[in-house]
């Protein structure tokens, strides 16, 4: 594989976010996790109106303010300055998580360390003994939101698959992930295991299978 080919293989972070945004229907209530998921908001197709929830107590969250307009008391769950759009509302934490736990949010997009072929998600702890455990709202989101999408690099930096038969890291939730958007493919979690929905440019099914540890079905993918 030449360097040039390697560069063309798969999706970059922006493309992953753009691809995810395609699957967010008009009128959805959406919670975006920290990192690549935050970028999804930029790519929602024109003509769709999506309302963003941030679990620290705001529905109708808008983009980051222009420089100098930041309000330290108007932040998102990642503790970054945001804005409130017309139609927004503020509420306290118990009400905010009632929205989450009560299955009122349609879609949550999260990052991942591992996803099992049963849809188990590990994204909060490597389980290393000296790590400071920190969970935030991740377990609440995966237990409560109707549909959980994951955006993630298909493999770790050292090439280890993140899509696995069974997670070795501590779980965030069991059987919660619906769909994975990796740099290599869009993949559904189904009763028959992982199923390819779409392959990224230059990615073949065999290439993907070599980098996936769980059961992988060709499914109804388009592309090569």
């Amino acid at each position, binding site marked *: 594989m030449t360097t040039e080919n390697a560069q063309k293989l798969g999706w970059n972070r922006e493309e992953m976010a753009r691809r995810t945004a395609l699957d967010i229907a008009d009128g959805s209530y959406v919670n975006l996790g920290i990192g690549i998921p935050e970028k999804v908001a930029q790519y929602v197709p024109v003509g769709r109106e999506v309302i963003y929830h*941030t*679990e*620290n*107590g*705001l529905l109708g969250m808008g983009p980051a303010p222009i420089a100098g307009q930041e*309000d*330290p*008391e*108007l*932040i*998102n769950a990642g*503790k970054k300055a945001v804005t*409130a759009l017309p139609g927004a509302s*503020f*509420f*306290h*934490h*118990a009400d*905010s*998580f*009632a929205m*989450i*736990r009560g299955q009122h949010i349609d879609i949550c997009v999260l990052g991942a360390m591992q996803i099992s072929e049963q849809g*188990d998600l590990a994204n909060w*702890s490597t389980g290393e003994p*000296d790590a*400071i*455990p*920190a*969970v*935030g*709202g*991740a*377990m*609440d989101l995966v*237990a*409560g939101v109707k549909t959980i999408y994951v955006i993630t690099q298909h493999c770790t930096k050292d090439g280890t698959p993140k899509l696995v038969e069974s997670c070795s890291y*501590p*779980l*965030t*939730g*069991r059987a919660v992930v619906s769909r994975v958007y990796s740099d290599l493919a869009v993949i559904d979690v189904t009763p028959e295991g992982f199923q390819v929905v779409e392959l990224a440019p230059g990615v073949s099914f065999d290439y993907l299978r070599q980098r996936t540890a769980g059961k992988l079905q060709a499914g109804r993918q388009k592309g090569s």
Partner: protein
Amino acid sequence: MIDKRIASLAEAVADIFDGATVMIGGFGEAGSPIELIHALIDQGAGNLTVVNNNTGSGHVGLAALIENGQVRKMICSYPRTLGSKVFPELYRSGKIKLDLVPQGTLAERIRAGGAGIPAFYTPTSVGTPLAEGKEQRNFAGRDYVMEHGLKADFALIKCQQADCHGNLVYNKTARNFAPIMAMAAKTTIVQTNAQVELGALDPEVVVTPGIFVDRIVTVSDPAQESKLVAEGRRYP
């Protein structure tokens, strides 16, 4: 006559005792009652159990309270915020305990504590290490864990406006845990950016009714935690 205003921060926190459970409002710096926390550092009560979503950042506010050795245990969901260095060090050296609770479960436990609900069931954390040792139960085909209401001896919170009855309104996402902590604490101590006349707050828009509030101190120009941290400030 009902007038919950207290003249000084020192007076407001004077009776917080060694071993008390103290809920502290704020999500990161938004809503953090930094002047009340500093007053608690001056006051010196130790062996505290502190409930907050995080563990502070830099060497001011909650981080300073922890650094000052006054906190025995943190009950929180995310003790690893950017800029949080004090807690991780003490935790690794075994000098502080951590009770890690998912954020929504923490919020619901606090609300339950304030609402007279001793326990409830939630789907959050089922199948994860945080459900280990907890009672589980199936309702209508789904598994849930039982969680207990959480109460406190004191709550320290910050608001935007308060009247002398203790009716409160907040500013944007600084609201976060404050309204439910006010419900769950025996004694709720509030620092407010501004005091308003009784009757100035529309009864339709009061977020925390005065029944949940015991003491109010005005701090009209509160410090901004991130600025203090950026400036490398320490307290005391």
